């Protein structure tokens, strides 16, 4: 999956869950999602949406603020999880 495709899919998840009070397609990859209205509670739904879409599991060590702070950060986490799935 290309980076831009990954970013697109993440935006779809953000919009599906109603995770943000704004349309995720208007956000840049580096924008702070917490500033855009992401709450710690919404990160749970966001994570569940990402797990469903990419068929991955987020281990507890990734369940912290930094993992979800931007679309870039989420891309990095998903990329890591997809790579370790392939290796397994």
């Amino acid at each position, binding site marked *: 999956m290309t980076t831009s495709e990954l970013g697109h899919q993440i935006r779809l998840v953000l919009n599906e869950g109603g995770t943000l009070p704004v349309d995720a397609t208007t956000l840049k990859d580096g924008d702070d999602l917490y500033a855009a209205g992401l709450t*710690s509670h919404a990160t749970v739904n966001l994570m*569940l949406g990402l797990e469903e879409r990419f068929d991955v599991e987020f281990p507890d060590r990734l369940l912290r603020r930094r993992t979800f702070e931007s679309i870039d950060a989420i891309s990095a986490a998903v990329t890591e999880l997809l790579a370790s799935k392939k290796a397994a």
Partner: protein
Amino acid sequence: MTLLLARARQVGSEVAARHAESVDRDARFPREAFDALKQAKLLGIAVPRAQGGDGAPISDIVAVCHALGQHCGSTAMIFAMHQIQVACVVRHGQDSAWHRKLMERLAGEQLLLASATTEAGVGGDVRSSVCAVERKGKRFTLQKNASVISYGADADGILVTARRAADAPASDQSIVPVLKGEYTLERTSGWDTLGMRGTCSDGFVLRASGDIAQVLPTPYAEISAQTMLPTTHLTWAGVWLGIASDAVSRARAFIRAEARRKPGTTPSGAVRLAETVNLLQFMRANVVAATRDYQRAMEQAEALTALSFAVEMNNVKTGSAQMATQVINHALLVCGLAGYRNDGPYTVTRHLRDAHSAAVMINNDRILANSAGLLLALKDEPELFA
């Protein structure tokens, strides 16, 4: 024992204990205990040394809450609530001159800080506000219909949560300390309750104005998750543990007296006492472990944002609240009628009444619902000695 703790124990046993009964009966502010705590310079212990305090870590604060809780639940709870406010200023105000000055005053003048988070209309949901910081140039005004402000009338300042600005959504909150002289309180309800009567948690309409620089620069969402919530749950748990510990001490004294009266026989309540001490140990271990974990997490800001940390901090509150009444109930059974009486050396009625506040003070069901959400994401079983 640290020197701080020795000072706290002295205030507890010599002052707070002596007035606990009248504080409870008359639902009055524990004036004598707070005069003594100020005199012993215990209100500013969490302020960093650079600002004139002792730089006391959370373990010391929880230990003092526990020590005071053994003598007067209301005194201990007020001390805890004050320390929660101090922690927010200390951990999130270091980059601001106004807040550093406040820290100096907290240590130097031993100011007492109260809290106005609860608001008519949103109940116990501390993460949303109706009222807002209304900015006008370099000044702000703020009006809050605060349904509960413990010792509001006796405090030297109040930390108020509000929406960051007039057009901010309910969850986009700031926290603002306002000091005596900058606010008025119009009393809207009294505090005639089952327990924690000395906290004098009246309702007020609070009207404040001040300098924009007073608003803590960090968003409340962060302050809440990293400081206010863990400090609240740990200090409260310390208070409840103290109350429960004293009830158990009374049960032990009761059984010893029985044993002395009939040497050679084990008093019939002794087995129940053993079970009670067992429960108390659970409660104690929970508070100690969670306090150490918070202390460790504070050294690496990332750890404070982990969902697993939030669940652990929730559990120390709900678990301690539940166990406090359970332990005291057991102590009551051990002491029997002597425990059920409102007078005499073995009474545990005030303990039981005070401890019943624990489950409603930010309702356990609300906190469990919060954990339930977080648990949808968590998967691992952490190492035992991680």
